[in-house]
């Protein structure tokens, strides 16, 4: 396990590249989502195909998540953006990178690109959106429910989740409850600085938005497409918020097409076989 000290905070990083000794053509940095997520959502899905396609692939666990250090506070979006910048500095990744973000990870990726455009080549958002006032308010509601139901009423909540969603989801929820209870994440995220529509529209990097057709977030696709100067959106029918894990081949194909500057997406990995 590779732990990288970004200056007072130790982050768990996994980095893979082309296995045949070729030099990587570009660097992709994959950012995971909140609470139950970790870099594993990429490691076992799109990352191997990205590396095989010639990319240098950097994955890391956000603070408090996976195997990264869990400070008791410092969980605003700005903290996450600063962590990403510190990590890239520490890894000596100075050239423009292709950012990929799942759910909250995409919000971090977009925020990083808005603040450091010179360090970003493209942004792929999976089931995600830029940080707006509406986003902060929605996340606040979700986190309030997590804290109220999971962190402070854990046995009952976990029994319900086990019965209705299965053992695996319940185990992930237990980890989420721990994070919500032990840190200020629940208060910090909704208090994050957000972007105005004008600031979002000022994005000059190519943006891809991928959504599950049955997800509430799919309705963001037309809004994002109309606001951004260079944006392509894809809605994948039959999937909800976990479209990255469930339809990894399709999602990965669209992202690779953006990174490689081609127009046609080819499925990668599992579904291509």
């Amino acid at each position, binding site marked *: 396990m590779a732990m990288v000290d970004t200056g007072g905070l130790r982050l768990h990083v996994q980095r893979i590249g082309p296995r045949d000794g070729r030099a990587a053509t570009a660097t992709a940095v994959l950012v995971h989502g909140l609470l139950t997520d970790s870099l594993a959502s990429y490691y076992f899905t799109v990352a191997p195909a990205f590396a095989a396609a010639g990319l240098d692939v950097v994955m890391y666990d956000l603070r408090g998540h996976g195997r990264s250090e869990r400070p008791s506070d410092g969980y605003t979006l700005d903290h996450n953006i600063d962590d990403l910048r510190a990590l890239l500095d520490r890894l000596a990744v100075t050239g423009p990178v292709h950012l990929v973000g799942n759910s909250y990870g995409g919000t971090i990726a977009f925020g990083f690109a808005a603040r450091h455009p010179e360090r970003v080549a493209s942004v792929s958002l999976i089931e995600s959106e830029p940080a707006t006032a509406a986003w902060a308010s929605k996340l606040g509601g979700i986190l309030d429910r997590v804290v109220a139901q999971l962190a402070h009423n854990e046995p009952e909540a976990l029994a319900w989740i086990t019965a209705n969603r299965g053992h*695996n989801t319940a185990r992930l929820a237990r980890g989420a409850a721990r994070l919500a209870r032990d840190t200020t994440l629940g208060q910090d995220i909704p208090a994050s600085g957000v972007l105005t529509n004008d600031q979002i529209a000022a994005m000059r990097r190519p943006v891809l938005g991928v959504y599950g057709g049955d997800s509430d977030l799919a309705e963001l696709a037309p809004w994002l497409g109309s606001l951004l100067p260079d944006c392509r959106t894809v809605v994948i029918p039959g999937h909800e918020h976990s479209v990255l894990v469930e339809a990894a081949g399709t999602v990965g194909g669209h992202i690779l097409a953006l990174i490689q500057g081609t127009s046609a997406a080819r499925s990668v990995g599992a579904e291509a076989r």
Partner: protein
Amino acid sequence: MKATPHPADATPRPADADLVLADIAGLLARLLEDEYGLDDVEIGMATTFNRDLELESIDLVTLSGLLEERYGGRVNFAEFLAGMEFDEIIGLTVGQLVAYVVTSLKAAEAS
């Protein structure tokens, strides 16, 4: 490979699966001890990673690193799992991983 002695009548490689199982059980024991402080978990071919060992997906990333340490580039656990559906990963057994490692090692030997 650190091979334990086998009966003289053994054909060159019939015990591959047993050896690999012993290897992997050792790696898993190390992981369970390091991450969860467990030191008495029984591991056999039918043991599931998710239900029996209670491993989370991030633990499988750690296991992937341990497998690479042990076998080098001959075994690519991430690619193995990336070829599976989510439900298959949830039901994955130690025996399936052993079979994959044995196949990968044989393929590497043959090439």
